[in-house]
């Protein structure tokens, strides 16, 4: 949360009450860099335990695709968490936004760009409603968004049955979209030309027929990286970022200092809902269909990723980059086991143990380096 930027050396009066600290120590003070230690541990583990194909280019892409979708949610969730609130309806929002999006395309025959805009707008409005209820009633956001978890999940089922005439899966989205360049912003692979060139020059693996094994980077990964960058910049460098930390740290103190607490919180809820809608759009376009169980328990995973990344559940502390690494750790652990020879019955034991070890290691390293106790 604190800044690394340096004051011009001339203005620093050396204070005898300040020990010299190494760059490493001061880096480790940042919430997200603890998560890097966790990531290193997990990678090291798999390096020895898993099949080598896990660390091939295509293996990495396999891990990044789900990690990036989770990551988009985790970044928004961690911003909301820094702002002192929760949103448990993210997962249901993914399903509901998927329904809205698919319904607009298939049932109402709207063009893609209208469907995308309307879905995002709709999600933002729903998020803002969530936020307004929390603010007006001063009920905990946990319970309010929990109600929305159920409501949105239920509405998705009802809506899907209505839209399909009885099924829980809405399909035909690829046909409805057709071939537009907008679609390539949200689905499929990016940098395909570059990868084709790499393959031509034998820099990456290819199939026998000359097609590169990895034809590009999933678009969701590009969104994921882009959003982490933007979120980090907003949190660390802008006024809104300062407000988010303030609101989560102590809403009363922030209000007393003139921070528009309610607007910040409402905005964060809208943002989280939009992130869910974005994931919905990406997955629906990729899969060509949507169903009633999309996004199930994603709210949970997003919070896990944010917490692994060092965000405090009580608000006021955390980082977007932390959520970035948290999502990658979670993705790595949950996909990684398939590359090992462990019996899959042990999957959950393994997932839990790795999560615990990752945060313990992170914690241990941070304390060692910074000398906290």
């Amino acid at each position, binding site marked *: 949360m604190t800044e690394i930027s340096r004051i011009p050396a001339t203005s620093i009066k050396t204070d005898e009450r300040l020990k010299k600290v190494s760059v490493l120590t001061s880096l480790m003070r940042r919430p997200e860099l603890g998560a890097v230690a966790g990531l290193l541990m997990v990678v090291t583990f798999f390096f020895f335990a898993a099949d080598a194909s896990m660390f091939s280019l295509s293996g990495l892409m396999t891990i990044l*695709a789900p990690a990036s979708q989770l990551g988009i949610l985790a970044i928004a969730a961690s911003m909301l968490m820094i702002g002192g609130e929760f949103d448990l309806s993210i997962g249901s929002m993914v399903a509901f936004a998927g329904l809205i999006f698919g319904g607009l395309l298939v049932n109402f025959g709207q063009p893609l760009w209208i469907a995308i805009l309307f879905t995002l707008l709709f999600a933002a409005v729903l998020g803002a409603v969530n936020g307004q209820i929390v603010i007006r009633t001063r009920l905990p956001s946990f319970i309010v968004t929990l109600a929305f978890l159920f409501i949105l999940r239920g509405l998705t089922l009802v809506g899907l049955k209505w839209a399909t005439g009885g099924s829980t899966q809405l399909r035909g989205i690829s046909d409805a979209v057709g071939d537009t360049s907008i679609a390539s912003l949200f689905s499929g692979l990016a940098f395909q030309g570059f990868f084709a060139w790499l393959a031509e020059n034998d820099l990456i693996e290819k199939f026998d027929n000359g097609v590169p*094994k990895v034809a590009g980077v999933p678009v969701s990964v590009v969104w994921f990286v882009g959003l982490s960058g933007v979120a980090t910049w907003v949190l660390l460098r802008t006024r809104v970022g300062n407000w988010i930390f303030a609101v989560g740290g102590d809403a009363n103190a922030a209000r007393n200092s003139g921070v528009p607490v309610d607007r910040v919180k409402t905005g964060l809820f809208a943002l989280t809902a939009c992130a869910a809608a974005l994931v919905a759009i990406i997955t629906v376009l990729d899969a060509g269909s949507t169903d009633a169980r999309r996004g199930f328990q994603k709210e949970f995973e997003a919070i896990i990723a944010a917490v692994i990344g060092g965000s405090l559940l009580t608000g006021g502390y955390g980082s977007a980059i932390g959520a970035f690494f948290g999502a990658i750790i979670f993705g790595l652990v949950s996909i990684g086991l*398939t590359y090992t020879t462990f019996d899959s019955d042990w999957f959950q034991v393994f997932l839990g143990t790795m999560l615990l070890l990752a945060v313990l290691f992170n914690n241990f390293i941070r304390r060692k380096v910074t000398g906290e106790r």
Partner: protein
Amino acid sequence: KDIKIIAVTHGQANDPFWSVVKNGVTTSAKDAGVQVDYRAPETFDMVAMSQLIDAAVNQRPDGLIVSIPDASALGPSIEKAVAAGIPVISINSGSDVSKKLGALLHVGQDEYSAGKAAGEKLNQMGGKTGICINQEVGNVSLDLRCKGFSDGFGGTVTVLPVSNDPAEVQAKVKAALSANNAVDTIMALGASTAGEPALAAVKDIGKTGKINVATFDLSADFLKAVDAGEAAFAIDQQQFLQGYLPTVFLANNAKYGLIPGGNVPSGPNLITKDKAAQVVELSAQGIR
């Protein structure tokens, strides 16, 4: 007086398989002119399900439809219903205990033998190494499907536990395939949640057609793949009938005291390339 029938199953209304059962129940209720309620616990939860049966018995319906994935846990509640004089028909799972608990008859086909039939078929198609994609480990009916498959298949079978998220399923299948090149058979336990992403994963690694992908239950897109020769087959339990028939039976029982004399097997029905095309539309409407 209105005839009221209650169905309590272990499958949630948003589960693709059970939503078809529910469609069967509602269609049949309309056809027979009776009132029907479909209920299921929020997760695969035998304790909650027995409580739902208790609540249903308390409302004294004219007929009760139940699935019996755990006879020990549900038995006492079902026996209570029978003792209260409510006619009970069991569906889907529990054919072995249905009679003993006092149900009039059983409609359905148990998951284990469906899995076994599929396994045998895939073995015939030349499979040696298979994976079974389970989207809800611990749900006994899904576990039975896997076990049946594994017993019928004969070769090596690994279970791949996944979630409901298509991106994750696809990634995990891809990972499993690249970690073990020998895999030549994939059995998915749900068409849209597991089957479709598995097909996508196979396509990603360029092995479409070389790996036999089969699934339990139907989805329109999976059937299209079957039709196109990209997937092997889909197992249809015709679960629509598991909802439709008992409702009609119980309605007739209430009206005229009529009831069939024995169990009704509703499946399995393997949908292969030759039949796939005609089923696509019905599947999209939640009838198959």
